[in-house]
């Protein structure tokens, strides 16, 4: 007999029905009963906004109440008016922003023409950034354009970023950039 899969399912359906009528069959309840404890059962819940695009979906971050307070799970916030619990593939991956073995925990520096990155202190890195921004900004700052109009701008620095900032953080960030005189300010969500 050549049994196709389709046929097979029909046959097995019939025999299962017969078995149900007979009332026989051994009880597997100990194996089958699922007393699963949800990993998020004792988690603290904090709402947040997805950092990735301009839609602004709401998410719930579940963190460990005991122990180290790390993130256990992040999923869509059903009460949020924008997404009502749903998240796209990027939003669904929010968990990895914090819990990720590839995440850098210290600033890294690669000197011009150097082949390797080296770990540096936050103090050193922030001072260097401030120093170089100030230098470039002062060197390229234009008070007036070719027509003599007041512009107070620099075209020597461009800002692209940052994908991991939320709406409010982005506002503060762009305010700082504009205060420096930047006009080229972009964000991945718009590119």
């Amino acid at each position, binding site marked *: 007999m050549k049994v196709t899969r*389709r046929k097979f*399912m029909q046959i097995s*359906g019939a025999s299962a029905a017969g078995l149900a009528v007979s009332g026989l069959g051994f009880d597997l309840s100990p194996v089958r009963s*699922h007393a*699963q404890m949800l990993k998020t059962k004792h988690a603290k819940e904090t709402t947040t906004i997805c950092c990735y695009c301009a839609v602004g979906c709401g998410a719930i971050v579940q963190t460990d109440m005991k122990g180290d307070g790390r993130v256990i*799970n992040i999923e*869509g916030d059903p009460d949020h008016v924008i997404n009502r619990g749903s998240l796209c593939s990027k939003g*669904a991956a929010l968990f990895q922003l914090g819990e990720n073995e590839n995440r850098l925990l210290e600033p890294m520096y690669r000197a011009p023409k150097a082949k390797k990155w080296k770990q540096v202190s936050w103090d050193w890195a922030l001072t260097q950034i401030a120093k170089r921004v100030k230098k470039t900004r002062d060197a390229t700052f234009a008070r007036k354009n070719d027509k003599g109009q007041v512009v107070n701008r620099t075209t020597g620095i461009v800002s692209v970023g940052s994908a991991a900032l939320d709406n409010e953080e982005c506002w503060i960030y762009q305010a700082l950039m504009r205060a420096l005189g930047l006009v080229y300010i972009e964000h991945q969500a718009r590119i």
Partner: protein
Amino acid sequence: MPGKSFFIDTSLCMACRGCQVACKQWNGLPAEKTVNRGTYQNPADLSFKTYKLVRFEEVVVDGKLKWLFFPDQCRHCIDAPCEMAADDPRAIYQDRATGAVIYTGNTKKLDTEDVIDSCPYNIPRAAKDGSLAKCNMCIGRVKNGLSPACVKTCPTGAMNFGSRQEMLEMAKKRLGKVKKTHRKAKLLNPDDVRVIYLVTEDPDLYHKFAVASNSAFDISRAVALKRLIRPLTRLTASM
């Protein structure tokens, strides 16, 4: 028919792959190394660490290009051939309340090839140690009143989950509506599985194993035999 079911409406799927990622995240599955193969379908196939995969197909139907999306996963068959093939409830069993087909670590003691071959939808995947894995219906979530991670995250309403009755009604209602604009629309094996797909084109165009009746191969003799004598073994075990 008690228990739970999914209704996956591919006519609403936009292939954002939110379900694929939410599944990985909830189940704590690692990423896979992917390469550019000229398609957004990545990774290329289901695996021991990928239970859910959105399949992308570009096909020309009646001179028109169609981009078909198929969020593939275990169908949680009402009468599961893999469970029959395994014939060991410590390795593969059906959860009574939901109807979810669950694999345990004991699957490594099974004849892996036999179980994989028994699946009409080509779903189970083996790890190096021989244990098998696939979608578990997020059984922990479902038992605690939540919907599976893939359903929870779906932004378009393509993924749905609920009581079997509710899902069948939703599927039939939706089919009636979609048929008005897509005359080839149909439900895939709605009476045999707990994951009911609605497709708008010939199912073979989406995926070779989208529908069971279209699979080109036969079940192994061993599985057929096991299936036939099963009521007997159950009887003896209960005595």
